[in-house]
């Protein structure tokens, strides 16, 4: 197929041939093309449909501000909706499809909406669809939802990976047009660390799209020469295909590099995109400006484009959007477009200039003081109707119309920290101002300096001033000679003639009429206007439309534009793939995994694992023949209670506490006393928050007068450490105490059951006496095992059995579990997992995470007496508040089903045996439940109002969520060995 609209010149590689598809049809383009330029080259103007009215739409711009030419790229799991054809680099094999149409782009059923546009005005839906009430979710909304939206996703997992990275620089230069290049060159020559970020796949910005000479050569050649120097400087890093999307606090910028989007798929192992977090000391915004349209009736037809975009297509991509082009302008820029088209031999059928004193242009008819009042062409522009200065109406044939209403500086990043731009009358546009991100200066067109010469100069100046602020002296390079045309513009926002719709926001179908309606209904604040009409809320975030809407509203209210409001922008500058923001921390790598020292061994045993925070813990160890997890767990419990069981308890937090005041420190941290704990002993400790709520429990072992090891729950290890550091540094800074976490350094195993001593005696080196007298309940000590491996031994018990916890250096953890199991063979020792651990602690009435839920006090837990009133400790004062000490306060109790075959579910609520069931009669809730193989029935722990006085009562345990009700007796939470004889044996 021929590329009918291709002209001479351009920055494309004509020797290349790139095949691509649009809506199933194959076309050819060249390397250097965008999808939009290649489609235009092939005379494809119709590229999409609008959001609401499904009006036919063509490409409007040549950049990332594009509102219309949105497509689905690629197929299958790589399908990517709403992609802007204007910034999609062409590659061989690219498949693009139009969207928001059915069945085809040319014939779209939903185009019927356009016929009813008079009913579908701004906010019409707020006024109807209210009756009957149930119809909203069932009828109206599904229809609306199906019609709304733009592209569709594949629902398949994204197959590509994304990287994140971190960069550091003295100066970040955003944009590589004339201002950005000069800023980078100035800073680079001064030896500063520079990052130059360019959204496009080539550098140079508008130098690539204009025909003006810079330093006697073409703009793009000059840009190439500067780039060559920048590339030679080691301190300068150039990132193309990289959009700076957000300006965050303290000089941090987010930028997305599209590493592989110009390929069919990323190379193996390589990311699709990288999110860079750039730490800059200073930044220069040189992001240029965006041309704005002039609204007129039916200004949304395919072929109506920005004049600067037409110029870009002709000059950079060697494409004319059509064989016959007209221009509609309020400034000299439009004339440039006409001149450049003529130079390429395109038929320019006229320049319509609203200025009565419009300059003339050789070889073209210039209609001074005229305006475009309407257009024709269903699926593509055929002609425009113009009204001449003398009032005459005339039709002008053209397949494309370049429109220029002036240029809006790209202030977006200056608004990201809530900075408000200020009005500049000279260019009739907002320029950066107000509260700018600290360290950011703006140069070139982004700051309202619209000529090339001004851009070059302000770019250099911005870099010099930024570096001066850093104490680096830099000299501005000699400025090359460049175009410095004055800006001549007559503000003109929309054509008032015509009764039809004139589009302000072409993607969201917001017209001048909608803005008038908003005004009529008192949605006059800019924010109300936006929210009511959806102006500027489409994928382009109003880059081409916000100003127009504001101007219309200003006219309606009789105020100036800056009095009416400002346009401010939120991050990101352009839409960012969620994958890039997520990076590698997804799927199985969402969080890092923590493995216990026995992990490898447990895998060999076929253990089932469970996530406990980031830890993977063995849940149970199935044996051959066991078909249900309960069989495994029951066996583990019974065998532990009968003989001996071994469990990896490494995950408990371990904090080493040393110093002359270590005991005094712990006395303040724990609710109960630690000052008098003898060396060689362990004590259970309860920690309160300052509000008196119990938040963690564990043990502290005193290894020396000035040395303790504190254990925390698995979940709270980090929090307890942080709080202890707070107490040490901020509350009692003069206490001599030092803290460090040692959780990872030790592999710790619980060895529990009547045979645990016998088992351990086989491994503990013989000089250490484990007899009950020498090493009684709650003893601890530093020992050696297996012939000299250093170890720690604690005689503590979570299971209620005679039990120990033995710790060895983590590197020996794997060998230690094997040694324990081997030594335990003669006792039929079992490994047990977290489930059996849980069963045994419930049988013993020990509180765990379900009970320490952040709202329970020591009193609730039945540990009220542990809170010492004789010393200062965190939480003791506020624990005395009346609300935490009510007589009917929740108390931890045990529950046993009256019918031992019934099962009590955790999370059930408690009601009296008789009476109503309601929130008002709620007596409490079940926190933990398990099947007790020792007792042969379901048991549970529960918080019960006034529970201490209700022993022996029968309650209803209700679970209406799952239609369940069980009668249960209130019993002591200590189901097994309440006197604690076993653990002292």
């Amino acid at each position, binding site marked *: 197929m021929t590329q009918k609209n291709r002209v001479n010149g351009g920055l494309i590689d004509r020797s290349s041939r790139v095949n691509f598809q649009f809506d199933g049809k194959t076309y050819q383009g060249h390397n250097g093309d965008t999808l939009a330029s290649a489609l235009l080259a092939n005379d494809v103007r119709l590229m999409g449909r609008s959001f609401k009215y499904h009006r036919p739409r063509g490409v409007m711009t040549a950049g990332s501000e594009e509102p219309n030419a949105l497509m689905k790229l690629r197929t299958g799991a790589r399908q990517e909706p709403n992609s802007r054809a204007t910034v999609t680099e062409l590659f061989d094999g690219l498949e693009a499809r139009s969207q928001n149409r059915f069945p085809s782009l040319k014939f779209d059923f939903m185009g019927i909406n356009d016929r009813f546009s008079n009913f579908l005005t701004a906010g019409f839906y707020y006024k109807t669809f209210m009756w009957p009430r149930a119809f909203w979710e069932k009828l109206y909304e599904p229809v609306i939802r199906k019609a709304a939206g733009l592209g569709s996703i594949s629902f398949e997992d994204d197959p590509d990976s994304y990287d994140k990275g971190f960069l550091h620089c003295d100066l970040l230069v955003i944009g590589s047009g004339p201002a950005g290049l000069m800023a980078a060159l100035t800073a680079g020559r001064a030896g500063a660390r520079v990052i130059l970020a360019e959204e496009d796949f080539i550098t140079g910005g508008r130098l690539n799209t204009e025909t003006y000479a810079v330093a006697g050569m073409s703009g793009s050649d000059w840009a190439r020469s500067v780039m060559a120097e920048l590339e030679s400087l080691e301190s300068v890093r150039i990132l193309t295909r990289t959009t700076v999307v957000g300006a*965050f606090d303290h000089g941090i910028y987010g930028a997305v590099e599209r590493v592989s989007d110009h390929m069919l798929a990323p190379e193996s192992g390589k990311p699709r995109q990288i999110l860079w977090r750039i730490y800059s000391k200073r930044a220069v915004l040189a992001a240029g400006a965006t041309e704005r349209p002039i609204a007129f009736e039916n200004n949304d037809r395919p072929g109506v484009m920005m004049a600067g975009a037409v110029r870009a297509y002709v000059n950079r991509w060697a494409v004319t959007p059509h064989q016959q082009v007209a221009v509609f302008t309020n400034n000299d820029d439009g004339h440039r477009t006409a001149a450049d088209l003529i130079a390429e031999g395109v038929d320019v059928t006229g320049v319509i200039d609203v200025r009565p004193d419009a300059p003339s242009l050789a070889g073209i008819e210039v209609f001074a003081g005229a305006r475009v009042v309407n257009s024709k062409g269903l699926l593509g522009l055929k002609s425009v109707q113009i009204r001449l200065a003398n009032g005459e109406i005339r039709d002008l044939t053209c397949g494309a119309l370049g429109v220029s209403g002036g240029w809006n500086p790209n202030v977006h990043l200056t608004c990201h*920290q809530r900075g408000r731009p200020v009005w500049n009358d000279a260019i009739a546009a907002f320029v950066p101002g107000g509260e700018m991100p600290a360290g950011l200066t703006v140069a070139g067109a982004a700051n309202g300096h619209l000529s090339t010469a001004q851009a070059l100069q302000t770019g250099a100046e911005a870099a010099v001033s930024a570096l001066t602020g850093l104490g680096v002296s830099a000299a501005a390079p000699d400025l090359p000679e460049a175009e410095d045309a004055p800006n001549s513009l007559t503000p003109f926002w929309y054509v008032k003639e015509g009764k039809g719709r004139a589009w302000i926001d072409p993607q969201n179908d917001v017209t001048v009429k909608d803005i008038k309606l908003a005004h009529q209904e008192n949605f006059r604040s800019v924010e109300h206007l936006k929210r009511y009409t959806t102006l500027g809320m489409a994928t382009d975030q109003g880059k081409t439309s916000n100003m127009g809407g504001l101007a219309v509203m200003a006219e309606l209210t009789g105020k100036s534009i800056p009095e009416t409001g400002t346009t401010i922008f939120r991050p990101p500058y352009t839409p960012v793939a969620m994958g890039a923001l997520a990076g590698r921390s997804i799927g199985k790598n969402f969080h890092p995994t923590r493995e216990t020292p026995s992990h490898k061994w447990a895998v060999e045993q076929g253990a089932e694992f469970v996530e406990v925070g980031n830890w993977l813990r063995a849940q149970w160890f199935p044996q051959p023949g066991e078909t249900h997890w309960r069989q495994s767990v029951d066996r583990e419990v019974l065998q532990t209670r009968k003989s001996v069981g071994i469990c990896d308890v490494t995950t408990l937090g371990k904090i080493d506490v040393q110093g002359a005041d270590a005991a005094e420190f712990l006395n303040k941290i724990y609710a109960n006393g630690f000052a008098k704990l003898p060396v060689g002993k362990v004590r259970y400790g309860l920690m309160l928050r300052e509000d008196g709520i119990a938040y963690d429990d564990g043990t502290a072992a005193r290894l020396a007068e000035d040395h303790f090891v504190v254990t925390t729950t698995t979940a709270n290890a980090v929090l307890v450490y942080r709080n202890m550091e707070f107490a040490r540094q901020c*509350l009692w*800074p003069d206490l001599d105490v030092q803290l460090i976490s040692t959780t990872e350094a030790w592999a710790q195993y619980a060895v529990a059951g009547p045979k645990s001593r016998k088992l351990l005696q086989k491994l503990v080196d013989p000089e250490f006496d484990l007899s009950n007298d020498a090493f009684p309940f709650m003893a601890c000590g530093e020992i050696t095992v297996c012939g000299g491996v250093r170890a720690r031994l604690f005689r503590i018990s979570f299971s209620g059995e005679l039990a120990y916890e033995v710790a060895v250096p983590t590197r020996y953890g794997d060998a230690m579990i094997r040694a324990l199991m081997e030594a335990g063979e003669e006792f039929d020792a079992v490994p047990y997992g977290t489930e059996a651990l849980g069963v045994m602690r419930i049988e013993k009435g020990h509180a765990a995470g379900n009970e320490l839920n952040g709202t329970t006090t020591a009193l609730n837990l039945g540990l009220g007496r542990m809170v010492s009133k004789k010393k200062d400790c965190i939480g003791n004062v506020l624990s005395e508040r009346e609300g935490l000490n009510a007589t009917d306060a929740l108390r931890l109790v045990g529950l046993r089903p009256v019918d031992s075959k019934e099962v009590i579910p955790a999370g059930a609520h408690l009601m009296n045996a008789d009476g109503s069931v309601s929130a008002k009669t709620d007596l409490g809730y079940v926190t933990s439940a398990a099947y007790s193989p020792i007792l042969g029935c379901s048991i549970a722990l529960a918080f019960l109002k006034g529970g201490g006085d209700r022993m022996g009562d029968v309650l209803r345990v209700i679970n209406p969520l799952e239609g369940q009700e069980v009668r249960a007796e209130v019993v002591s939470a200590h189901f097994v060995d309440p006197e604690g004889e076993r653990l002292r044996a």
Partner: protein
Amino acid sequence: MIINHPLLGPRDAQEFTYLGDASLIHRPDWQGEDASGQFHDYLYLRDNLAGQHRELWFHEVGDRSWLVVTRNTLTHEITNVELARDVARREGRGK
């Protein structure tokens, strides 16, 4: 955000854990008059200033220092950073 750590220089705020108003250093005397009221005010009431705010940050992924950071809550500008332990001592905390 970047916090200029008094020992380590500029560090990304992501390395820190935030606690709140630096007044939390001034834990009341547990035996003082109206201790319960004092603790209530200490723990629950905040000036919550729109402007200069002295606040506690913990360098969790760092050197484990608690810092007192003076930061403007309207602009996020940070004007002063000190080790909380130094502040606590200076403001009368001891053992």
